[in-house]
């Protein structure tokens, strides 16, 4: 797919599973393709800031609670 990730990790799959949503369901709610959801979940693609915000709003969380670049402040 599109390898743009820089060791970014995310909890998208976990959050999706908690709501019992399929990738297609999440993709439809975010208005992206299922391939996009899969690429983000597997870390092959880092979403743009606008899409990251859409994801955060959908799950009612802050961006940094979903995405982790490994440099979180302690």
């Amino acid at each position: 797919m599109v390898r743009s990730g820089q060791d970014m990790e995310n909890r998208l799959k976990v959050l999706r599973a908690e709501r019992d949503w399929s990738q297609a369901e999440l993709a439809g709610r975010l208005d992206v393709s299922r391939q996009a959801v899969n690429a983000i979940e597997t870390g092959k693609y880092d979403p743009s800031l606008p899409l990251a915000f859409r994801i955060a709003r959908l799950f009612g969380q802050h961006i940094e609670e979903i995405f982790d670049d490994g440099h979180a402040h302690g």
Partner: protein
Amino acid sequence: MTDTHMADDWGAKRLAQRRRRRWGIAGALVIVAVAFPVLVNLLGGAHLSELRGGATVTPDGRTLSTSALLTIAFVAIVFAASWLGWRDRDEVERELARRMYAAIGLSSMALFPIVMITAPLLAIPYPAMIAWLGSIAIGGIVYGIARLRG
């Protein structure tokens, strides 16, 4: 209607709706592509071989003009459909498309001079068309591999 009243699978339904719309556009494009040479033959009077080769034109100026207008209309339709398709794509799909177009452009830069120089030696017919099709094919392969890896 509020979110609470919406079906639990409204996201999947929206995705399916978008998929149907895309297939509709793709189907319309295929119909236009198939109908184009038929229309040119019927209305333009130019034979397909003449359009492909580009070397010969119909002796009738009016006929050539009709063919040219049809060709411009065809290109415009393809361009408009491509633009609509681009707007409908998400950022991951656009990134894939950008890589495909980059592969087409880069391979064209290499293929074009090579094919043009070797064409007389190897008796390659329509070298420009061969180079163009080769670049398109390479772009398609790059896109296909990226999709399969995804």
